[in-house]
């Protein structure tokens, strides 16, 4: 240690060199070789950030002294750890630096022992990092090892990705992962589907096939009115158009698969093959590219290995695969369109995002579950941009949404058909005539129905009250997430004065996301889970909607982190909650195989959990119960009096978990919100002062409240962007770039 320490004199210039070089160890590929359009490099991003409110020439120096790297959009868990100062993840440190362009972050992330990191100085930590990075010789030596030490703490997907990278097959990772996922999807499709060989009504498979049949044979205005008793069309128009397309292609191959009326209940192997292929094709065309762009936008600043692992984790998402390719539905199209919207938001293209989200809504009305979060994100962005630019964005968004909706419904609107035609699709899409819940769904209503109150009996004839109650509870449920986004936008909102100054520049600035973007996945989770738990007419398959943001969060987290634990638990319980459905469809083997495969891929071993945190204890309890339930169901037939005993027990196990995931998402939303812009209340006054135009000079609040070192680090990581931005503004106001405004260089003593 000493010799290496002495090798670097306490000279600042040298130290800068070290800092400048460090990123090149871990960040070259994706900084240099990425898609420049969607991922501006960190420095450029900062430049654009500042150029929005300051004179461009002044920013040069601040870039050099204190680059504010772009935040990892899914890694805000780290930020709270940083700010909290106590939770250095000792053994579960992420395999790569938190931020590729921040020297400090890679120090901490590569130096595993928490006590030492608190004792040692920064320069010593840098040396530690150099040691841990290894000199080239040892790197090449490590190549020969089949299993480096990290391997014992990672999933199969990460091991595979590492192996591929090490054998020079990096470019093959994404193609072969996608092909492998298509292969698995196709294999799941070998099984039976919803309503297989159960005349006269069959199931979801027949519903989808019937829609293809009716859309290709009937004119637009009859789509939503034709024989409603037999699987009448009750999805929005985009589904109908997609069905029309599939039906057209199918009848080119064999018209008898989609003959009007006579093809009802057709189950020939060829038609099944075509139907399965249509799901795989639509999934590959929409959902897989959405996942890929997600990897490149939301995780664009992370190592290519992490990106690849995230892609694999998402590609084999068991719940979605089982429902879409086993049970038979086209959920991945709806989810893929929503995900494309999220990616567009992350890249800063809000109008494109809004367009995609409306398409998602237009494919399946279930995407409404996300609407509160997405709506308040966009509204929050309008607030963030200030009155002038905000209202301009608002108008544009409103115009885009309206235009897209009109386009979607065009065939049902006046020029093409009588004005009354539009009523049929709308009343079909939003059916309030059905019951509070169907079958046994792991949501609040079914849960309390079993345990406490017989809702249906109690409110017989007064269903209106129940509808209102469920709507009210749902709104309460998603309010925290939505409010967080709006509040975040308000807290971080830009100075009107700055915007005025740079009106001309602002137009040329590449689109950038708002600071509230990291809140979006949590808000999506809160909102969709609240709908799942409290809203009216929920189906058990709807759990796919909350699972999407949960899995997105999980894919960006490192092993055994809190987000990861909740994500895995949520996914496993989500699949378990659909067990009664899958069992009915005859997909028990696929259920088992997918759980096995996916858990092994992400590196989750339910048998090796240690009760060292709340979520771990909860996981153990849930897994034990679930195993017991499966064993019981296998061995003992349900008593004649309670034929639904096992589905009911399933509901009793799953609902509390979903409820806790919902509460956790709210908690995380608050934490992340705090990391972005301070807590509501506590930080309001300070920022209020700032925004009123009376900036406090010094001392800096961040420096006060947080220990000096870590405050610096948190800021240089970009986790205190509003602080950084504020201080940048202060300095510009003062007319000089003071040295002390920016974090002191690292090793200065």
């Amino acid at each position, binding site marked *: 240690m000493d010799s290496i320490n002495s090798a670097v004199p306490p000279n600042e210039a040298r130290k800068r060199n070290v800092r400048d070089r460090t990123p090149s160890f871990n960040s070259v590929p994706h900084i240099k070789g990425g898609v420049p359009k969607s991922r501006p490099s960190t420095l450029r991003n900062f430049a654009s950030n500042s150029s929005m409110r300051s004179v461009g020439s002044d920013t040069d120096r601040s870039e050099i002294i204190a680059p504010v790297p772009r935040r990892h959009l899914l890694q805000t868990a780290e930020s709270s750890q940083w700010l909290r100062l106590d939770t250095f993840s000792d053994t579960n440190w992420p395999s790569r630096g938190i931020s590729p362009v921040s020297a400090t972050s890679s120090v901490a992330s590569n130096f595993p022992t928490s006590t030492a990191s608190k004792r040692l100085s920064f320069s010593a930590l840098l040396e530690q990092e150099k040691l841990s990075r290894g000199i080239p010789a040892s790197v090449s030596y490590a190549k*020969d*090892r*089949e*299993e*480096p*030490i990290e*391997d*014992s*703490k990672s999933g*199969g997907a990460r*091991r*595979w990705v590492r*192996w*591929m990278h090490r*054998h*020079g*097959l990096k470019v*093959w990772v994404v*193609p*072969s992962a996608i*092909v*492998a996922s*298509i*292969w*698995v999807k*196709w*294999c*799941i*499709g*070998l*099984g*039976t589907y919803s309503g297989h060989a159960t005349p006269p009504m069959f199931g979801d498979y027949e519903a989808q096939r019937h829609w293809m049949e009716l859309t290709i044979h009937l004119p637009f205005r009859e789509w939503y009115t034709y024989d409603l008793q037999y699987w009448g069309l009750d999805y929005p128009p985009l589904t109908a158009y997609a069905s029309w397309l599939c039906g057209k292609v199918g009848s080119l191959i064999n018209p008898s698969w989609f003959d009007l009326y006579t093809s009802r209940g057709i189950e020939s*192997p060829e038609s099944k*093959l075509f139907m*399965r292929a249509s799901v795989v094709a639509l999934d590959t065309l929409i959902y897989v590219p959405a996942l890929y762009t997600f990897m490149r936008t939301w995780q664009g600043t992370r190592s290519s290995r992490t990106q690849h692992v995230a892609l694999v984790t998402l590609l084999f998402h068991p719940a979605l695969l089982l429902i879409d390719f086993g049970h038979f539905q086209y959920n991945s199209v709806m989810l893929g369109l929503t995900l494309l919207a999220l990616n567009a938001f992350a890249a800063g293209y809000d109008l494109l995002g809004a367009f995609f989200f409306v398409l998602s809504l237009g494919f399946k009305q279930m995407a409404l579950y996300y609407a509160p979060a997405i709506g308040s994100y966009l509204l929050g962005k309008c607030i963030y941009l200030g009155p002038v630019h905000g209202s301009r964005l608002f108008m544009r968004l409103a115009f885009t949404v309206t235009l897209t909706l009109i386009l979607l419904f065009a065939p049902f609107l006046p020029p093409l058909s009588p004005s009354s035609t539009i009523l049929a699709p709308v009343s079909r899409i939003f059916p309030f005539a059905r019951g509070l819940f169907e079958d046994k769904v792991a949501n609040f209503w079914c849960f309390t129905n079993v345990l406490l109150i017989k809702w249906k009996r109690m409110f017989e004839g007064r269903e209106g009250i129940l509808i209102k109650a469920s709507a009210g509870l749902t709104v309460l449920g998603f309010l925290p997430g939505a409010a967080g986004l709006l509040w975040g936008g308000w807290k971080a909102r830009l100075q009107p004065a700055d915007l005025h100054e740079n009106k001309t520049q602002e137009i040329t600035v590449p689109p950038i996301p708002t600071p509230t973007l990291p809140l979006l996945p949590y808000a999506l989770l809160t909102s969709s889970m609240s709908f799942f738990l409290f809203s009216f007419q929920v189906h058990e398959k709807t759990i796919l909607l909350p699972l999407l943001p949960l899995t997105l969060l999980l894919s960006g987290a490192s092993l055994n982190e809190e987000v990861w634990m909740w994500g895995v638990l949520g996914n496993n319980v989500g699949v378990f909650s659909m067990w009664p459905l899958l069992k009915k469809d*005859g997909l028990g*083997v*696929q259920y*088992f*195989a*997918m759980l*096995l*495969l996916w858990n*092994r891929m992400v590196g989750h*071993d339910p*048998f*090796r959990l240690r009760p060292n945190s709340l979520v771990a204890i909860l996981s153990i309890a849930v897994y034990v119960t679930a195993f017991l339930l499966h064993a019981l169901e296998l061995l003992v037939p349900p008593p004649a009096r309670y034929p639904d005993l096992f589905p009911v027990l399933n509901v009793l196990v799953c609902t509390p978990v979903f409820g806790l995931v919902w509460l956790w998402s709210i908690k995380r939303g608050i934490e992340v919100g705090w990391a972005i812009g301070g807590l509501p209340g506590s930080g309001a006054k300070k920022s209020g002062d700032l925004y009123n135009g009376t900036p406090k000079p010094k001392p800096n609040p961040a420096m006060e409240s947080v220990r000096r070192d870590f405050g610096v680090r948190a800021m240089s990581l970009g986790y205190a962007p509003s602080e950084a931005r504020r201080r940048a503004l202060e300095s510009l106001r003062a007319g000089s770039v003071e040295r002390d405004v920016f974090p002191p260089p690292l090793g200065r003593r």
Partner: protein
Amino acid sequence: MSKLSPPSSPTQAHHPAIPEDQEETGSIPSKSHRNSDSKWPRWGLSRSETDVLLLSTGLKVLLFPAYRSTDFEVHRNWLAITHSLPVSQWYYDTTSEWTLDYPPFFAYFEKLLSIPAALIDPKIVDLNNLGYSEWTVIAYQRSTVILTELILGVVLLRFIRGAVDTSRQRIISASLFLHPGFLIIDHIHFQYNGFMYGILLWSILMAREGHKLSSGILFAILLNFKHIYMYLAPAYFIYLLRSYCMSVSGEILPTRFISLANAVIVVFVVSLGPFILMGQLPQLLSRLFPFTRGLNHAYWAPNAWAIVTAADRVLLQFAKRFGVALSLNESGVASTSRGLVGDTVFTVIPNIKPVQTFAITVGFQAIFLVKLWRSPTYKSFLAALTLCGYSSFMFGWHVHEKAVLLVLVPLSLLAVDSYAYFKTFLIASTAGVFSLFPLLFTPAASLIAVVYSLLWGASVLLPINRQIYEFPRSVPWVILETLENIYLVGFIALQGFVALFPLLTQNRSGSAALEFLPLLVTSVYCAIGLIWAFLRLSVIYLKQQY
């Protein structure tokens, strides 16, 4: 004899007899392993090995509802025969057309499997319940394939433990465990090859470790499971005779010879003894060796005879069109109109008799065996073994396309030896695996096979190719390599043709005559590659100094 304890339980993989185990795999990652997993037994498996095991199990389980050939019913019927009939009736029963035609050890094996089957669902072992295809029997039979295949996995693990180059052997072991051949034949088409190739590899492993007696005994056992392995017997005979029963200078060591002979005899007595006592040996042999079949199987295995038969067909067309006066064989002309089903009778070329195929096979084998006799080392044995199986596959009578595994499995063990071997392996594997695709004729199943094979190729062949690629040294070699690569790329076009041909001709009249054209083209194209790989391997083996 202690080496003979079957590796049925994975704990055996940590056998104390192989100390290299600790050195090879344990030295570097040992720290992390021992720390992290005190609670969880590891059975000597590293994490990536567990990954392969669990992932492959998951994938195989997903294939439960896939297409099954009649072999599935064949094996179910054998479960029923061995469970409900006394031993004396096994080789006489004709309730089903799928009579028992495997050697006695396989019958005993089926008897063993039938015991749990009867507990799970008694209808599985009901002799008269022909074509039973309930979920229970599918799940049960498919799981027995997965479970018995673990023997293959354990043996492949032990191959890694003592290997010279652990990391390459790891790739080869994984490639064999995940071989598309096993996936197609065992897990979709349905057979128990994984388990039996496990025994074969175990025997080869024993030869590598120097336990030649055990190697011989294991091969004798394998012969009594499935007699197709007789194709490999000459290489075993020469190898064991020369390197085990004789000293280096060429003197016979009587004690060794007698112990080997006795051991093999004991194995055969255990297997055939009961039937000899009951005087059923002729009946048993007539079941095992039905000499009533034709030169080619229904779908021509991609060997020399496929080329000959195709040439005959082409000549016939030529003769018909140009009216060349050739002495056409009338029954042969009738045979062509029946496409590929049934016996092959040549029209232009003189018919080939079983004796002739036998002579050609033995002739080729003799060349390699002479070389083996001169240099009876393990590597030489491995190559000679492969070539023995290869000669039989190329020139045997009524060879089935599934027999290509006899070539591909031992050849895999040679693949990482040098680039010359690897290129041979690459060509043979591509052609051999592709030739298996017609086994699965439903579109869903063939898509699975094709995509899986592509993935397998990408994750096995590519990394090895990168590691051991050698530039060709002179112009002829460059040309040769280019031609080989063109041949390999041609498989893409071939797959496109096979997939699109039925779609293009389905509405055209007279398409029935062309119905078998894709099969014929596949067979011939694969045969070209396999013959070339055979020649390549022969030359490499004969030229190499051992």
